[in-house]
């Protein structure tokens, strides 16, 4: 790739009069020696999986393996039918769709990691809802995925996209930044505005700890995906309105690394700190461990008809 920072990426766009998506597609093709149209086709396939996951999640048949979560996306979608949500329809739709994909993930259904499975709801939530709202064709959204990918590429290489390394800011935070920047470009904003959106979005996620109950990608991950989709739209709107990130996005990414490294281990996906360590978090963990022990015990016993 020709860029390591968002500033370099925006400069390439400016000098070559290209969008972030175009630069990412070309660089990807060059790096992997695969033609641009084939690279585009793979991303288009991924977008179809995202749309399927949104639909699957809205049916509400998304009980997770642990039994802790499922069905919340449908609750939000049903609630929206009853009247105007506090957020307003478009943001609430993005939120419902993001919850839907995240619940499909928790139930071991098929999703696209964007950038991770823990944060897989935000980009589809934002993309699929805005596609319906603005009547965009699929190809436009596939371009948007390359924009998001370019932003994630910079974050992953300069900070982290792993909750175990950098906390939830590395997963949900990265996804929000990626979705916000992509949305700016999809709405016709400049690469510089897209980069500002990334900075604005990431600043609001710094220090977000990864504290999943029982270590599972469910509580609080699923609701953070729902809320993250809304934050991404807000950051995109600020940037499109001309609001800049006074601290440049690349410097914010540097801070992500610093904050992530400074986080105690227990707040990095161990399921031992934060919400996981609350009385309820501990209680749920204990119940799951017991449930697991029972299952192991049952599995070791011969079937009853052999006794």
């Amino acid at each position, binding site marked *: *790739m020709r860029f*390591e920072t968002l500033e370099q990426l925006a400069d390439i766009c400016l000098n070559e009069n290209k969008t972030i998506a175009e630069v*990412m597609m070309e660089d*990807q093709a060059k*790096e*992997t*020696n695969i033609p641009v149209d084939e*690279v585009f086709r*793979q*991303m288009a*396939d*991924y977008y179809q*999986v995202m749309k399927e996951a949104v639909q699957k999640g809205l049916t509400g048949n998304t009980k*997770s*393996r*642990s039994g802790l979560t499922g069905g919340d996306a449908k609750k939000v979608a049903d609630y929206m039918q009853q009247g105007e949500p506090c957020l307003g329809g478009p943001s609430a739709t993005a939120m419902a769709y993001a919850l839907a994909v995240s619940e*499909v*993930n*928790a*139930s*071991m*259904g*098929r*999703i*696209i*990691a*964007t*950038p*991770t*499975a*823990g944060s*897989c709801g935000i*980009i589809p939530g934002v993309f699929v809802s805005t596609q319906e709202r603005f009547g965009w064709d699929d190809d436009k959204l596939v371009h948007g*995925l*390359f924009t*998001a*990918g*370019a932003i*994630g*590429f910079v974050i*992953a*290489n300069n900070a*982290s*996209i*792993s*909750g*175990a*390394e950098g906390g939830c800011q590395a997963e949900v935070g990265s996804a929000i930044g*990626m979705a916000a920047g992509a949305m700016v470009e999809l709405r016709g904003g400049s690469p510089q505005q897209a980069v500002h959106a990334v900075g604005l979005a990431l600043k609001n996620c710094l220090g977000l700890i990864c504290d999943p109950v*029982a*270590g*599972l*990608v*469910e509580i609080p991950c699923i609701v953070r995906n729902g809320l993250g989709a809304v934050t991404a739209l807000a950051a995109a709107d600020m940037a499109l309105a001309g609001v800049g990130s006074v601290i440049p996005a690349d410097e914010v990414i540097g801070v992500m690394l610093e904050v992530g490294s400074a986080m105690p281990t227990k707040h*990095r*996906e*161990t*399921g031992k700190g934060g919400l996981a360590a609350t009385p309820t978090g501990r209680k749920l963990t204990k119940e*799951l461990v017991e449930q*697991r022990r029972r299952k192991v015990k049952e599995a070791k016993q011969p079937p009853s008809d052999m006794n």
Partner: protein
Amino acid sequence: MRFKNVFSIIGPSMVGPSSSHTAGAVRIGRVARQLLGSQPEKAQITLFGSFAETYWGHGTDLALTAGLLNFDTDDERIPEADIEAEKAGMSMEWVQGKGNGPHPNSVKITLWAGESKAEIVAASIGGGTIAVYSLNGFDVQITGEYPTIAVTHSDSQGVLASLTALLSREGINIGYMDVDRKGRSGAAMTVFELDSAPAENIIKEMTNQPFILEVTMIDLTQRS
């Protein structure tokens, strides 16, 4: 740069719930199977760190098993991989490792099939991307992002030159290479991450060269 292309950020297409614990685990399982070169009959899996703490809820056990069966990350049979393993006649042993291993999400896999044995140590570093730290006891640094050949050979002068000459003759570019040896003049392993996969006859020709003990192809870029 740990992440090298856009599909390591957007993607993989996978069965949930965790790109680190599930998708990365499938890919590690596939690397182990490819190193063995056949369907394993027996697998011993030692989990470390976060893998050991949360594998049951994330289906990491199912995902590693699925990888050993050569399933891809988005194979919808992953949730039933334990049943599939039984059908395939593969027995599994799970061990709780002490500490974190080389990374908070690490695993050591030992496989047996007939006379063959293979062992890897690897970690899932985020977003489904993996890092392999050891192949059959040799320290390596590979990702599975590129077609990779692992060559076991004796530590003798000229071996590397002959290997690189062969790849050069075939027009195959080396992206990364790494050599580790057990001791001077002992066994050694060289791994090559390549821009394109060599044909089977090239692997055979390589195997027939002096001092070469074994050549194994590891390639996660091809769908199973």
